[in-house]
């Protein structure tokens, strides 16, 4: 039972991460490899506050979200002016720099030694310690994230984002402030990611920089793409598939020395296969992943 609950909690955390990233990648068409950095910032801010200032969970959550948002603005404002593929490299650079800072400021963040013993959440006197209690917390937070994202997507702002994805130049020519919109969605995606970080820190009660590397960013991107870009329910599906499926593989008896490599290979192969045959993922919009037609003819 504990195992199942644990998996469900993880699915919840990854749903928060992928729904927030989907707003940026799926709806606005902007790829960022820095998602794990915001995830990590949320986790570290909450952990450091809880360990050093002994502040309550909800306050830590609020401060973490704000800190992540500010960090998102600092990263986004200068970088979003860049061309698409250069923006990706910029986010890559920010991700690596964030990781290095977390890893090297040993006196502040614990560095590679990590931060053990993070206190578990205490919300208005109600202690959250068991898996069931955590699951309820995660479901609530996931629900809130989903609701916020859904509101954004259905609003005129959401339509603007999609328009930017389809044809940015046209939107700019039509007089809309594209860079403003991009920064807004980037900040939102950063803030929501930190919620997942706070949950992670208080659930596992131990964090170290290795949980927030570039591979983690790539994993979250895979969830968004495979689940379905521009479809929030797709992110739930993606989380379930990419978190639960590898667990099922444990029950197939593969010889130990290669089991782990085989699982990685299957993951990589899954990425390649999806890109070749269904780039929009399970539930995504059909046109995602394909360059738009120009005057009805294929561009060369």
């Amino acid at each position, binding site marked *: 039972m504990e195992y199942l609950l644990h998996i469900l909690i993880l699915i919840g955390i990854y749903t928060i991460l992928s729904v927030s990233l989907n707003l940026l990648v799926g709806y606005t068409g902007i790829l960022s490899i820095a998602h794990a950095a915001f995830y990590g910032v949320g986790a570290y801010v909450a952990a450091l506050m809880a360990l050093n200032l002994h502040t309550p969970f909800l306050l830590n959550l609020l401060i973490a979200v704000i800190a992540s948002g500010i960090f998102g603005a600092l990263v986004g404002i200068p970088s979003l002016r860049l061309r698409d*593929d250069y923006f990706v490299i*910029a986010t890559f650079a920010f991700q*690596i720099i964030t990781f290095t800072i977390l890893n090297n400021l040993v006196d502040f963040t614990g560095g590679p030694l990590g931060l053990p013993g993070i206190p578990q959440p205490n919300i208005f006197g109600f202690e959250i310690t068991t898996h069931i209690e955590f699951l309820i917390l995660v479901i609530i937070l996931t629900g809130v994230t989903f609701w916020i994202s859904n509101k954004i997507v259905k609003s005129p702002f959401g339509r603007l984002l999609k328009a930017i994805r389809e044809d940015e*130049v046209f939107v700019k*020519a039509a007089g809309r402030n594209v860079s403003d919109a991009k920064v807004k969605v980037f900040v939102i995606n950063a803030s929501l990611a930190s919620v997942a970080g706070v949950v992670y820190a208080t659930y596992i009660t131990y964090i170290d920089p290795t949980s927030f590397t570039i591979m983690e960013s790539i994993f979250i*991107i895979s969830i968004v793409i495979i689940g379905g870009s521009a479809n929030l329910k797709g992110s739930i599906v993606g989380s379930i598939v990419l978190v639960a499926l590898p667990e099922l593989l444990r029950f197939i008896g593969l010889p130990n020395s290669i089991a782990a490599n085989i699982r990685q290979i299957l993951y*990589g*192969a899954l990425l390649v296969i999806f890109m070749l045959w269904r780039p929009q993922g399970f539930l995504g919009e059909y046109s995602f992943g394909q360059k738009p037609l120009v005057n009805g003819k294929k561009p060369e």
Partner: protein
Amino acid sequence: MNFQFLINLLILLFQYSILALSFSLIYQVIRFFHFAHAVVFTSGAYFAFLICVFWGCPLLFAIPLAIICSTILGCLIELLIYKPLRKKRSTALVVMLASLGIYIVLQNIISMVFGDDTKSIRTWQVVEGINVFGARITPVQIIIVVTSVLLLIFVAFYLHSSKTGKAMRAVANDPELANISGINSNKVILTSFAIGSALAGIAGILVSLDVDMTPTMGMNALMMGVVAMIVGGVGSIWGIVLGSLLLALAQNLGVWYISSQWQDAIAFAILLIFLLFKPEGFFGKKLKKATI
């Protein structure tokens, strides 16, 4: 700074240059990040290991064979994965993810077959390097530098003078115009992959002759090459050399004065500065975002 510092700089500079060059040749014509290039680099070393150690071939024969194998690997990736995706008009994001998937699959295959520990193709004893003005350099390192310089000159010459080279530059500059002029872009792309992968394989072998090989050595090496390429400017060989120099200098100074822990952060901070203030690098051309 003492002479040893310069020697360290030189070795790192050329290691970065060759890999950056191999990547930029491909990047110029396909315009997305071919992450799998990292494993083509690693495969050069491991093919040499396979041929030399497993099959007992002498190193002199193993190396050219390994280079050919890496080239074939790079071309297969283009023919089997990228070309079909191009036909489907996939966006750069989709191809990048596919490239990442290929990297994960191939790197894990190398780990499974060869193991994750360090493997070596050095057949000679480790000896003190040759003493040059108080600094040390080993014969292998001299070979690395000389080979790299020769390769850089050769590729520069090829790009400027030969028909295929000119075609590559044309496609890199303006694919639509190139197509209209009758250049077969698929053929040009395949040629770029061939040359780029061969260079990557050579780089992998050279590095492993100096510091041995591990299955995961490719990604970090590639990232440094990418930084050098962007800082120097895509499409300019002088730019790549200059970019590699700046990167190697910053990293070495960083290790010397601060600590090696910040090496990666320094590299990427430089990258960010260039991306934000001079994205075309030292000698690259300013690329228009969109033509209306």
